[in-house]
């Protein structure tokens, strides 16, 4: 089936089997291998990308369902010589060990700060009718869909907190 979407600002035309997930389209067909395949079942968050500005699990959606959509992957956030502030903060705070979950963690982190800014509540937000705060508890809860087997969680929270404070 023929389709197109925009990836990191560039229109990409593809002809794919209907079964192709967005993740496989990005990795196997467009060779954007920053997004990782961990569990392939939406449980680990390694495949997290932004579609229309919102983070989703690229493994649990079909490419054909994204005709015309705007997709941002880790490659679209920054590059080795021009790191996104969140990438720089992960490096500074050692927010990883093996690095496999890191692209998903970073895409998710960037989206989490946007979600807090947009006033979207979370499970740990005490008052549903107040604006959620930028606390470590809020960050941990909102990042619970991104698993790190190396257990770099406390450094990940430090990295996100630093970027949040820079933006504030």
């Amino acid at each position: 089936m023929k389709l197109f979407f925009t990836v990191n600002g560039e229109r990409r035309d593809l002809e794919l089997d209907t079964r192709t997930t967005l993740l496989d389209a990005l990795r196997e067909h467009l060779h954007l291998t920053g997004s990782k395949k961990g569990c392939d079942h939406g449980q680990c968050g390694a495949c997290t990308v932004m579609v229309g500005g919102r983070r989703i699990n690229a493994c649990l959606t079909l490419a054909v369902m994204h005709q015309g959509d705007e997709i941002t992957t880790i490659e679209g956030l920054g590059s080795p010589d021009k790191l996104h502030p969140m990438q720089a903060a992960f490096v500074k705070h050692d927010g990883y060990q093996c690095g496999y979950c890191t692209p998903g963690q970073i895409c998710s982190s960037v989206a989490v700060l946007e979600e807090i800014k947009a006033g979207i509540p979370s499970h740990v937000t005490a008052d549903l009718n107040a604006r959620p705060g930028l606390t470590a508890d809020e960050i941990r809860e909102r990042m619970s869909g991104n698993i790190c087997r190396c257990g770099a969680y406390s450094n990940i929270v430090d990295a996100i907190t630093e970027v949040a404070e820079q933006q504030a």
Partner: protein
Amino acid sequence: MKPFTYERATSPAEAAAAAARRPGAKFIAGGTNLLDLMKLQIETPAHLIDVNGLALDKLEPTPEGGLRIGALVRNTDLAADQRVRRDYGVLSRALLAGASGQLRNKATTAGNLLQRTRCPYFYDTNQPCNKRQPGSGCSALGGFSRQLAVVGHSEACIATNPSDMAVALRALDAVVETVKPDGTTRGIPIAEFHRLPGDTPHIETALEPGEFITAVTLPPPAGGRHVYRKVRDRASYAFALVSVAAVVQRDGTGRVALGGVAHRPWRVEAAEAEVPRGARAAMAAILANARPTHENAFKVTLAERALHAVLAEARG
């Protein structure tokens, strides 16, 4: 995944008609549960009808003073809506207690209602399961049943409904609006939407073949304190062992629905007269017919204690 053909629906009625025309067709919206199950070949639709293009993503007031939630409103947007946060807090809380941020961004209102059980034997295609393969038997009855149902189950199935959202909708007396393949519409009270397993656990809802959910309607706000308490093995991103959705009024009366204990959100309206007398009396009535396994008998105690905490929070 097994091969399938794919089309994009152009209207709700047309989607329903298309599903009725094509045996083995399924609707796909968020896809977060369906694609998971397709990868495991637990679901093997021959045809997918993508309904994402239908403009069913609005929340609007009803003439009666309630709220009409479009079938495609994403879980994130429903939980964050100011009216839901203010007037139906138990629904926001239930949604935010479920899944992850990524999944809530994709999952829809109708899809959440239709998600399948997470019973480990339903997921293991090497094991008999009456829900996955009718007539093959239930592996869970004599198996690992810690997570499974304590009430309303049958000899054919002890699976639980995994949804948090549906538990809140049950406490709120929501109505599920649908369109059938012949174009007629109806409203199904949430109490009648999910079925008990009986001897047909593969039939999970009151929907007829091809029938398509267009919206979920909430009655005018009930007032009171809204609490959703979910007890699980992790602090976040896990299914409920037991959950309690409650709307408690100032005079101590209230509505209580339970998650994690049955094949559908568990509410016993007749038992709610006991709510002012406290958690012990209320839960004894709500779970009067409980028949737990030796592995999940703890859920009966846990449900009572969770309700105790909920009632204390509602009073405080």
